[in-house]
């Protein structure tokens, strides 16, 4: 960047900034390599002033590690979202991690049944904070087509908090991408979801309220075993 020697000394630094920026972006011999929308937004100064929280949120939203977590039909469409044609990786969210300890987003792709819910809760608990949940498909919203089943949890929200619901049976890959993009936007804006349903919790067996079913099972379950109690009649 060359500056004219006969330019008078200017004290108004906003003007300096403006001129320098203009010179950089449009002036003769301008170096185009660094010009970008980002540069335009930043102005001449290579420094950004932002709140640390905001910065972290932006980073989180722009580099999401998904948990490789397949449950049911939706996981087939989820695999298609990860692979060729749709390629979720383009949106900075396509690295499936096999271990929950390395992941920050869990996509719940399918019907959750009584036997699986405690395991899913455990997997969710193993993910480091901050963590986000995308519920994929009708089953994670309400139990979907299987809602009336004796063994089906009426939505993932009964077990873990869900940030984004993607409806569909199954949702198309485009819909999942839209859901992930919405999640990224929410993260960048620092929003989080309130828990709307009182979830089923993992509790110690002896902490449960004594009633008929607890008595029946007393000889089968140890007192300190973790259990999940389903009150089907109270389900939404």
């Amino acid at each position, binding site marked *: 960047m060359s500056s004219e020697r006969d330019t008078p000394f200017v004290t108004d630094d906003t003007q300096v900034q403006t001129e320098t920026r203009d010179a950089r972006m449009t002036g003769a011999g301008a170096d185009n390599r660094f010009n970008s929308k980002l540069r335009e937004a930043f102005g001449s100064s290579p420094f950004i002033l932002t709140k640390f929280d905001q910065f972290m949120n932006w980073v989180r939203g722009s580099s999401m590690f998904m948990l490789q977590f397949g449950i049911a039909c939706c996981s087939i469409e989820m695999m298609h979202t990860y692979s060729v044609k749709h390629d979720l990786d383009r949106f900075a969210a396509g690295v499936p991690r096999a271990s929950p300890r390395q992941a920050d987003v869990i996509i719940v792709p399918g019907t959750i*049944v009584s036997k699986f819910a405690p395991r899913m809760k455990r997997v969710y608990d193993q993910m480091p904070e901050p963590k986000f949940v995308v519920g994929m498909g009708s089953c994670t919203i309400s139990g979907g087509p*299987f809602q*009336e089943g004796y063994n089906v949890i009426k939505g993932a929200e009964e077990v873990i908090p869900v940030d984004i619901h993607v409806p569909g049976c*199954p949702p198309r890959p485009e819909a999942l991408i839209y859901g992930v993009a919405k999640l990224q936007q929410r993260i960048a804006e620092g929003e989080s979801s309130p828990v709307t349903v009182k979830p089923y919790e993992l509790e110690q067996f002896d902490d449960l309220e004594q009633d008929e079913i607890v008595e029946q099972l007393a000889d089968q379950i140890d007192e300190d075993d973790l*259990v999940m109690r389903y009150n089907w009649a109270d389900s939404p």
Partner: protein
Amino acid sequence: MSLEEPTPEDGAVEVLPTEGDEIAELLGDLVVDREEHVNAPGFVIRPDSVQETLRRLRDEAGFDHLSCVTAEEREDRYESIYHLTSFDDRQREVSVVVPTTKDDPVSESAEPVFRTADWHEREAYDLIGIEYDDHPDLRRILLPDTWQGHPLSQNYDQDRPQIVTLKEWENPLADDHREDAGDTMYVNIGPHHPATHGVLHVKTVLDGEQVADVDPDIGYLHRCEEQMCQTKTYRHQIMPYPDRWDYASSGLLNEWAYARAAEDLNDIEVPEYAQIIRTMGAEFCRIASHMLAVGTFALDVYGDFTAIFMYAMRDREKVQNVLEELTGQRMMFNYFRLGGVVWDLPEPREEFFELIRDFLEDLPEAVEEYHDLITGNEILQSRTIDTGVLPPEVAKSYGATGPVARGSGIDYDLRRDDPYGYYDELEWDVITEDGCDNFSRLLVRLKEVEESAKIIEQCVELLEDWPEDERNIQANVPRTLRPEDDKEIYRAVEAAKGELGIYIRADGTEKPGRFKIRSPCFSNLQTLPEMSAGEYIPDMVASLGSLDIVLGEVDR
């Protein structure tokens, strides 16, 4: 037509009892009563003569395939129905009906005769509540151990609370080992694990590095498919559910299983034109399903997420495009109707045929690529050849079907042996491989993709030349179907994973009285302990991949 009738090799035709009366003679006074099912003669026997009856039918009448065990609760009794057929001639069928009393539902187990009865009877115990004497390991299979009540029995209260535990599993062999002979190690695989193809839990015990004991623990996706079908009407409401049994894009194949059973139950004739469309659509589903099987198998065996998995997905996308044109959906098609299909081919037809032709044209090259990348790969070969060996006798005893059976040299394919649709008019071959190992099962799938392409090509030719005024896509079917009370049927089709059978008992209403799904994956998965005993963990994972299970169908 290349579909030769299976004939005994030496020409000396051994006459086996097939007709009801012949079988009745063979069984003699074991038979208490006779029933007539739509598909087969039924024989009612006493609950304590199950093993003798089945053994006699297997050894003296050649009924060597226990296809399915259905259990149900009736007003006055419990019933277990053993659907027997033969690997050599699928059209020979017999049902053995075992009633037990309400207050003491105990019946003899068939496990010593047919190994496959092990899981089927556990399921019957779990969902219906019939107990089986002499069963090696009668405990719940689909529902958690602590479940109260049997959900498909009458008077089950669905609203009662249930408690499910999350506990550490124990090493079942811990007490077995001797102090000086080393220790066994317990490894938990699943239910959340990338190599288990869904939510399967494999309890594995290792002795050194070798697998000493494997127990597949299923039920993590048991979403009450049978209950759902029992609470819906025949005409329209059941059809969406089959799509979700085997969801690895086998939708139309599953729909066909239900359509075939329900059509035979209600005496519905399907127009020829609709049968051709069905055949074509079903073979597309088979290709998509085998592509996924091959892609994930390679992913399991040599961790190739970048190349082969992506190639398989690329080809699946093409198949899904065709299916989407045809049915309007990528996965859950809901395209079949009783008596035909929901709508005709998309207009303009030429473009649709063009799309299919393009796909078929590219397919040989794509398959060649798979052979280069997978079957020609030395790593894969050394990992899969001679691992996961499943001898044909064992496979038969476990009721394995589909590519798993054909990879063990069992020449059994329902499309040929019990023809339905338009298959017997077309030119194609049943693929078998004699290796009995993981590699053979892979080869069978890849070759079947080519056979399916042949079938599709012939269907397209037929459809192109079909006269415009004869394009009849649906038979005239009443709005409400009420099959007669007590009419029973068991019908199966060749789905991507094997024999997918449906048992329906009508109760005179517009909903089935009992709807039972015989899932091929359920039976195939039972062979896993047999295949992996004494092998290494990675070989067990390879065997699991080669079985190509879909948990939605295993658990239903």
